[in-house]
Structures are given as C-alpha cells and as structure tokens.
C-alpha cells in the first residue's frame, strides 16, 4: 500500500487531536457512570476506528479490552454488511463476534461526515450484571455460556437517530440493579457522542482526505516502529510455557505454550492450549488476542500512541477451535479476561524473554478476586458488583527497578483504580476492615516484585453472596532473569473465611454466603522478581524489613540476608556471605 505524502506539521496536529478525543471520551465515561466498576475502578476502554475499520487510536485503558476490540469491530461491521446509517448505535457483547466476556458491553457509534461513514467511536465497559443465574455473571458452576448471562450479538439500539426503547427495555429487564445498568448505558453512549463531536470538528478543519492521509501515515509509523523492535531480535523460534493452575474444576493443571517465530521484521505467534472444558475459564479467540498483544507489549514496552499498525507485522495462530484459548460455543467463559488470559500472556512473555533476555520484565500477580451481591436494607434495593479492590496484585519487577506495589492484576497493567473505601461503603452495605499490603508477598529478586494486597470485608446488616474467581493461589507470578522465591506460600493469593472464630482457607473458586459478624479476606499475589535474589543489595533488604514488606525469615530464606537483631535490624555480615555463597 502506498503511503500518502502529508505535511509533517498537520500530521502532528492530527495525532494530538485523536489523543485529546480519546481522553475526553474517557473522562465523560468515568464521570457519569453509575457502577463502581466503571467509575471507581476504570474498568472500561475507549478507542477510535476508521471506516475500514482499523483501530486508529487505542486508549491507555485496560489491556484486556483493547486487543479484542480490534476483531470485534470488524465482526460487528461485517455483520451489518453495509447496513449502517447516520444515527445508528450498535451494542454487542457476544464472544462469537469477538467480544471478551459477555459482561463487557461494547457500544459502536458510526461517525458520518457529509453523508459518508468516516470513523467509529467505540467504548467497552464492564457492567455490574448481565443477567443469568449468578449475580455479576461469574458462575463457577456454569457448564455452558448460557448459564452465565445474556448473549447479545450486534444489535442496533439506535436506528437512524431513534432509540429502540423496546430493545433497550428487553435488555435491561434481564439485568439486576437495572438503574445502574441503564445509567452505564447512558455513560457509554455519552462518551461515543463526545468522541464524534471532536472528530467532526477535525474533519471540518482539515478536510476528510487530509485527515485520512494523516491517519494512514500514523498507522504506518506504528507498524515501522514495532517492526524495528522485532528486527532487533535474532531470527529464530522462541517458546514459553506457563502453567494454569486448577482453581477448582478438577481437571488438573494445564499448560499453555506460546511459540514465537521471528523472521526479520515479522513475528508469528502460535498458541497451544488443551481442549476447552465445561468451566468458566475458556477464552474465545477475540479475548485471546488481548492476552497475546499484552505479552507482546511487555516485550515492546512502547510509549503511546497505540494503533492497529503496531500489529500489522504480527500474525497469530490461536490453535484449533475448541481449545482453551480458542473456545467455541457453548463453552462457558466468564473468567476469561483474567483466567486463562494472564497465563496466556505469561506464555507469550516468557517466549519473548528468551528472545530478548534482560529486557522483558517479570510477570505480574494474577487476578484472584470476588464479586458481591445482596440486599441493601438502607435503600431497600438489590446490589451487585465486582470488587476491583479485591484483585489488586503486585507488579512485576523490571530490569531497572522493583515492581510497583498494588498495581496489578497483570491483565489490567495498572489501568484499574480500586475505588475509595468510603465510597465503596457508601455504595454497598459493607464494612471493609482491611485493605493493605502483604508481607513477603513480592517475588524475590535482585529487584523485588511489588507486594500484593489483602482486602477484608464484612456485610453491614444482611447476608451477602460472595463469588470468587481467578487463580494464582498456588503458583506465584513468574520471575524474570533468574529470579525465584523460596517462600512460595507467601507469594500467592487465597480466600480466608472467618466464622465463629475459625478461619478457613479456600483456594478454589466458590460461591459463599457471608453473614454479618463473619469476615472474608481476599488476598492477591505479589509480582515476580527480576534477577537472582541473592544479588539484592542487603541494605535494600533491610529497608524492606523495616517497612514490613519482607520478614526477617523472608530476608534469610528469600534473599540470603541474615539479620541478627530484630530491633536494630543489624545484618550478620559473615552469616550472610556464607549463606549467599552456599546458593
């Protein structure tokens, strides 16, 4: 394809306007949404597409949303076979059309200019409910997708500017906490409108041809940038295998393998995963793209802006239909955006670590969280939500620094926010007794992984349903460049239920009822370390001990640093050298 000649100055201006547009869409969405998953937790994403439709700007939101938006937009566009008109607005969630999981609802707004389709403004957000037997959608007992909620293929909720209230009513009637879902629909629609308003102003100013030419150049630049990074890696085949732990389905642990073939500036990634299972951890192809692209970005480490040009030289074979990472209907899938996606990302990350050693950062802690639901006696209404504060894990350490504490999970890469605890207690009838960092949870390494978090909750005055999802309760986040930990049990997550003075540790995904006076503590894993732990500067280990991030025992076992006095944190230099030499 010939790349058009454009004025370099106009090009920079167009780039700036696209980024500003995405930012303003994001702000509008966040400020107006109802569900805490949107407005406190930032579990939504926005993107712009051109008419072809190719993604011309990816927001800096949730990585798990954005890879899949690329095939999803194409699936939606081809479904309507050109039957798209000014004033239409399309809604979709179904994974057969490259949706991620059905609780992530997408809106696609075609932007017409002088009667012609020029752009799409697109938003995706995690609703708090999508109908089905279990509040919040995560149903560990589901054997089929039908037991997880409402599947919505591409449908028009506006037809040439007229809202289809009958369809909207049908959708909302099937969802819990209708008021929240309706408010969130409005927020998504509002954001699409804000985006369209800006893009039309851009077209007015520079004219359609110039804008489209600039966008073509921006896509090409991104492509060249990624190609150059790939070309710097020696040609060859690199393979990474990550283990997906059995979090209660009984089929045992699984292996997911990514094979990365580098040839010049091209990269081909092949995924091998086991056959799909009747448990909610199957990933349809669209969602798996997000996992693969995130693994790629952990290698590329590129600054924004992001667009689909990045992936032009990257081809992916997700493996045969009917496998865990390329599931087919009716496989249940609700957990897929975290499990198995994070293990898939790890496999790709590991393959790239072999291709570019000492560059690629360690894995982040996997999501291992909970949803809550029940009756709010304060307002006499039902409540349901995913608790984002319950999935905040530690970030992986990098070649240059320790991992961030409380920044994960891997699939979100720091884009989430967990919400203010007073706002959560205001919105839901709960008491959050604890939200803090966990000692010894960061993966050991020359650079330590970030600490994971512990989130403890009690219902205010009536029983609460608690549904857990995810994994990372037995296998810790993967270290990089030779990092590994000794005290594994401290690095992983779990659920602790305290009833009648007894504490039960749960590592499977479960549905539990919690009564007032009982407490549930959800713990999230730390991030992986980078480099051999025995090479960590002993003084930094002491600092971590002083700050309660590493215990005295952890200093000795994970880092080979012997602290002889628990008060002064004096190091026994001789014992430390001896212990470190013995490794």
């Amino acid at each position, binding site marked *: 394809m010939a790349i058009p000649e454009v004025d*370099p*100055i106009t*090009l*920079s201006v167009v780039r700036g306007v696209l980024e*500003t547009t995405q930012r*303003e869409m994001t702000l*509008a969405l*966040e*400020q107006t*949404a*109802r569900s*805490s998953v949107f*407005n*406190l937790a930032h579990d939504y994403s926005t993107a712009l597409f051109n008419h072809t439709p190719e993604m011309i700007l990816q927001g800096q939101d949730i*990585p798990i949303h954005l890879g899949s938006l690329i095939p999803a937009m194409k699936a939606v566009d081809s479904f309507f076979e050109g039957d798209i008109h000014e004033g239409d607005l399309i809604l979709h969630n179904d994974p057969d059309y490259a949706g991620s999981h059905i609780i992530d609802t997408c809106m696609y707004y075609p932007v017409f200019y002088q009667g012609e389709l020029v752009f799409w403004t697109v938003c995706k957000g995690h609703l708090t409910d999508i109908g089905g037997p279990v509040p919040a959608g995560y149903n560990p007992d589901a054997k089929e997708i039908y037991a997880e909620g409402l599947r919505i293929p591409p449908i028009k909720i506006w037809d040439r500017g007229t809202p289809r209230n009958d369809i909207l009513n049908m959708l909302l009637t099937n969802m819990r906490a209708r008021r929240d879902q309706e*408010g969130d629909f409005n927020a998504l*629609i509002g954001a699409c*409108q*804000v985006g369209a308003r800006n893009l039309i102003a851009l077209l007015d100013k520079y004219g359609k041809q110039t804008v489209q030419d600039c966008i073509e150049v*921006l896509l090409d*630049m*991104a492509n*060249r*940038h990624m190609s150059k990074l790939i070309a710097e890696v020696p040609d060859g085949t690199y393979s990474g295998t990550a283990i997906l732990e059995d979090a209660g389905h009984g089929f045992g642990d699984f292996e997911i393998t990514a094979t990365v073939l580098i040839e010049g500036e091209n990269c081909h990634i092949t995924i091998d995963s086991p056959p799909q299972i009747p448990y909610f951890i199957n990933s349809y192809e669209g969602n798996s793209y997000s996992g693969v692209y995130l693994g790629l970005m*952990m290698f*590329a*480490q*590129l*600054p924004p802006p992001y667009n689909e040009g990045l992936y032009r030289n990257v081809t992916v074979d997700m493996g045969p239909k009917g496998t865990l990472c390329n599931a087919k209907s009716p496989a249940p899938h609700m957990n897929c955006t975290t499990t198995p996606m994070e293990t898939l990302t790890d496999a790709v990350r590991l393959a790239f670590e072999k291709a570019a050693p000492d560059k690629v950062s360690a894995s982040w802690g996997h999501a291992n969280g909970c949803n809550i639901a029940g009756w709010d006696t304060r307002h006499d209404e039902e409540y349901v939500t995913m608790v*984002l*504060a319950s999935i*905040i894990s530690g970030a992986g350490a*990098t*070649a*240059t*620094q320790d991992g*961030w*504490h*409380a*920044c*994960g999970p891997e699939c979100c890469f*720091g*884009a*989430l*926010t*967990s919400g*203010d*605890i*007073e*706002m959560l*207690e*205001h919105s839901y009838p709960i*008491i*959050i*007794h*604890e*939200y803090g*960092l966990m000692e010894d949870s960061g993966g050991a390494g020359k650079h330590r992984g970030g600490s994971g*978090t512990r989130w403890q909750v009690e219902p205010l005055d009536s029983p609460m349903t608690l549904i857990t999802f995810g994994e990372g309760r037995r296998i810790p986040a993967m270290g990089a460049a030779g990092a590994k930990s000794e005290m594994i049990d401290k690095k992983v997550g779990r659920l602790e239920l305290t009833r009648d003075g007894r504490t039960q540790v749960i590592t499977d995904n479960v549905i539990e009822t919690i009564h007032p006076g009982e407490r549930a503590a959800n713990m999230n894993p730390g991030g992986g370390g980078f480099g051999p732990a025995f090479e960590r500067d002993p003084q930094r280990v002491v600092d971590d001990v002083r*700050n309660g991030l590493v215990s005295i025992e952890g200093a000795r076992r994970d880092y080979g640093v012997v602290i002889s006095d628990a008060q002064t944190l004096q190091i026994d230099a001789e014992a430390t050298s001896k212990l470190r030499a013995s490794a």
Partner: protein
Amino acid sequence: MRTQYRLGIDAGGTFTDFVLAERNGNVRLFKVLSTPSDPTRAIRNGLDLITEETGIAAGEIVANSDLCINGTTVGLNALITHRGAKTALIATRGHEDSIEIRLGHKEDGYRYDPEYPPATMLAPRYLRRGVRERVISNGTVHTPLNEDDVRAACRHFLNEGVESVAISFVWSVLHPAHELRAAEIVREMMPDVLLTVGSQLYPQVREYTRTSTAVVNAYLGPILRRYVEAVDAHFAALGARNPVRYFQSNGGLAKGSVVSDQSVYAINSGPASAPQAALYIGEPWDEKNIITIDMGGTSFDITLTRDGKANINKNIDFLRYRIGIPMIQVETLGAGGGSIGWIDEMGLLQMGPQSAGSEPGPACYGQGGEEPTTTDANITLGYLSDEGLVGGRLPLDRDKARQAIRDKLADPLGISVEKAAHGMFTIVNNNMVNGIRRVSVERGYDPRDFVLMGAGGATGAHITALAREIGIRKVLVSKLASGLCAYGQIISDVKYNYMAPAPTRLEGAEAAKKLDTLFGELEARGIADLEADEFTRDRISIRRSLDMRYTGQVHECTVEIEAGSIDEAGLDAIRSAFHARHRELYTYDEPHSAVEVVNIESTIQGHVENPKRMHLAAGKGADTALKGRRPMVFDASGATTDTPVYDGGKLGAGDRVSGPAVIEEVTTTLVIEPGWTADLHESGVYVITSTTAA
C-alpha cells in the same frame, strides 16, 4: 497617616517578581533571581534592588505599605525535591497503606514503561501506624478508639525523631471524636511536632483523598512554618504595620499562622493569582469570561474564569499526590520559550516537554545550547529582534537559531528552515490549544465564548496565533503582563474555604433544613474568623457550592448557588442547576433521576481595597513609535512578509497598530498577525481584535 504603597512579592521557579503599587496608580515591577535554598534571601535582595533603583529605603516602603503580600514556592519546592519534614501517619488499623496503594493505579502514559518509578512515600511504611478504632458509613462507632495503640504509635515516632504527624481515620468526617481524642494524646506526648487532623483539614468524604491531603500537609507544614516565621520577623523588623499576607492556591490571601497549619493551601499559589489579575485588567470592558495564559521559559500555565469565577479543582493528583482541597485550576504544560523541538521514535515533530532552561538555554542565547527551541523558532520567524530580550540585555544570535533548526529538524524532515520554524511554532501552539481545552471543553465551556489574556514574557509572540487557532476574537495584554501574577496577588482578597460532608438526597423539607443549617454553621465560623482578623461584616462576602450527582454515580459535579436561606423551593432551583451543569459537561442529563449532595463548601472572602488603576497619557499616533521593519513568516509555506516594528514604550492611549506588526515592550514582544488590530487603552492594556469576518 495614609499608606502610600502596596508591595507584592511572588517567588517563581527562576525569578522572584516584586510589584510596588503606589496610591496614585504608578506600578513598578522588579525582578531578582529566586533563591530556593534560602527563600528569604531573594526577598532581602529584592528589597535592596528596589532601594537601589528608587532611592527609597526598604524600611520606608514596608512601613508605608498598607499590605505586604507574598506568594511562595517553598511548599512546592519541598514537594518536588522531597525535602519535607520527617512525617508519620496514624490511621485506622487495616488502612495504613491507602496512601501507598494509591487506589491500585499507575498513571496513564506509562502503561508499559519499565522505568517509571512509584511515587516516593512522604510518610514511609515504617512511620505509618494503625490503631484499633472504626466508624462505619452511617456515622456510628463500630470499634471504640484504643488509646494505648495511639500511645504506642507516639513512642515509636518519638524514637524515630518524627517532626510532623498526620491523623486520619476512616469515616472520621461523620464522627470526628476518635481523631480529636487521638490528637489530644499526640499533643500530650509529642508537644513539639506539627499535627494535622484529617477531618479538620479536609472534612469531606473520601478516605484516600483525605489521608493523602493530611499527609502532604504534615510533610510541608514544618517547612512552611519556619519560612513564615522568618518572613514575618523580617517584615516586623522593617516596621510593617500589618502582618504579611500569604497567597494560597485557592486564589486568596491568608495570615502566616493559617499557612503554617494548612500548608497544603500554599502549594501552587503563584499562578493561582492569574484569574484575579485577569478580572481586574478586563474590568473596563466588563470581561468576566477570560482564559489567561502565562508562558515563561519552561512552562505554560493556563487558568480560566467564567462569569467572574475561576475554575476550581478538587480531589486531583498534584505532583503525583492526591490533594482534596479546592485549588484554582492551573493547567501546566511543558511548553515555554525553552521547549525543545525533536523528532520522536515514530518520526513525528514534537515540541517539549523537555526544556533547554536558562542554561544552556535556546541555541540563540549563544551559551552552547544546540537544541532548537520555541525561542529559536520565534527569532527565525522574525518575531523577536536580534537586539534581543529584556531591552537588549539578553542579545540573541539568529544564525545559531537557524543552524539548530536546520540540523535537528529541517534537514531530517526534508523541509526549509522557515517551514520547520513555522512548524515548531504551530505545534507548540497546538499543544497549548490542547491544554486550553482541558480548562474549557473538559469543563463544558466553549473557548470561543472567552477573551484570551496574555501573561508572562514569552506569551506575546504566540497570542494572536493561539486566539486564531481556538477561534477567540478578542485578546487583552497588559503592559504589566510579565509580572501579572505578582500583580494579581496585590489585588486579591483574604479567602478561606469551609467544608462539610453533607450526604443528602435532594428532596423534602428535611433536606432543605439540613443544608440550610450546615451552610449557616460553616458561614458563622468563617465570619467569626474574618472578624477576628479585623474585617468588618460589610467587607465579608460568601460564596456557596455543592458537590452533587445522580444517585448511584460516584463522581460529583460542583454547582455554585447564591447565599441565603434554603427552603424546599430552593431545592428545585439547586436541582435544575445541577441538571444543566451535567448536560453542559457530558452532553445529557437525567431529569427524572434522583439527585444527591455529597459535600458542601462555603468560601468566605474578606475584601481588600484595590490600589488605583494605571493611567496612560494619550498617544500621538502609532507612526511616532515606528522603529523599523523586518521580514517575518506568517505562513506555513515559510514565505516572508516585510513587517513594521513598533516601540511599545512610545505608544500612548488610543494608538492603533494593525497587523502584521510587532510591538516591542521591555519585557515582552507582541506579535500582531495579519487580520488583527491592537488598540492601546489608557489603563495600559492592548486590546487586540480580529478584523476578519466571524
């Protein structure tokens, strides 16, 4: 005896500006280098300079000033360099880490960056102690305060040599008793530390915001206290008749003791005076909708006033720390005269945020700088004179500017030097336009409904281009533009914010009564504080705002209302104002949804009388001020136009200059693009209007 002067001292990053206003309307600006390591030294140096240039002793000026006003960057610098006090936090047990978890978020723009570091902790984890206590969301006590835990924390802090302590408990805003009792214990056991209590400093819902605000305040407090004591002592020794007033980020003045206790209010005060100055300068035309831009060497600050009120920010990340208290919204970009032009990894021309600073400075300074900057572009385009800046005290080398642009940008991009320079100019302007969107479009305002006001020495070259780009048709630039912020401070009022949590659904007589009572209480406190500061009631004014949302939303929009008693009919008016504001911001409203209030605030102002306005003599026609012509570039192609240059010092009231033209003032250069006309007003303000059809 009538006082003769008012003295304003605004410390900036590079310069400290002094403005001396005389009762007869004369205003003089003085500049000295800032001295961040010993901030009071710049003040002494400046007073010496004034004495040197005017022959009046510092003591005479100070003793004959009705007010001496200081805007300081002491707090800001301590936060930037992480040189605050050794700070500890007492929190609800289980919630000691909220300021380190930071809501689990990593800032946008660094998503995959392996080198972006976590924020430095102002109270490190070993100095954060949890105590057993808990209030829940309905304001009742779930677990009583364990006083022994507080004492144990104090013993630990004493051992560690802590200088400042913050106390912040969950839901303390609904039941402050636990925090207040803990504060008594801390005062008893640690009488020498500075103490910050979350529910007193920032009585609003949101634990993370409140705790973080309290910790920032604790971290800066001892530094500000030492500074204020030194400045107060110095002015007292010079015979000041009134205590020094300090400028705050809320756009108002405060006494020294307030700044010591509530140091977080003084954090970004400098640029916060721009809206006040803008309103004052715009007054002869009754302009109340003004966007003010202040371009200096390294940064570009934008503020906005609408209907005479400045945009306020609450609950924002400032230098990576969450701060709740209301601050004038100042959007700061790395887009100054020293901003460097470069070609990014994708091959795109970019401007800033890196800056050549003052050393080595732009290539045209001839101090060894090799990077092409905004100033280099402006001299290449002919906008700036070879004679240089500041009346020739800083000569500029045009050839060095051209060479830097050719080597670094024009040749790699395959375009002419003039075209590259115009491209740099366009891109830096475009970055500024995007910044202006943040204070306008993102707040639901159309920037075309505003006038644009220039401040800072470097703004004049860009201002008509920016106005054109945004679609603004009227621009105001004062002859005092380069010291506008210092000037804004001397015409500001004393201002304090009083806040309360008020979670209320906005319906029924009960709700009206609750709001009425709460506002009444806040305002009684505010009036008493100002009366104690010798403001009579007729000089005290009140403004009210409510943070509101649709029930179920989590973010609020702030809606301003009139002072006065609130009844049920009043609630209707408040609700309508909220719907309108929501529509303005987000394209839609939900007239049938329930509306709730979260927090309320009253701003209490004590009015300070303004000094007299500047008055220029009538001009003799612009021709008498023509000093020469030079070729300039106004076109993206790089083509030049022979353009007249005027000496601003020789222009008088009523003189008119039509673009293309340049007006050179001592501290700034005004570029009047083709299609614009500048009229000099008797108040010393250039009124620049677009002459093209709308």
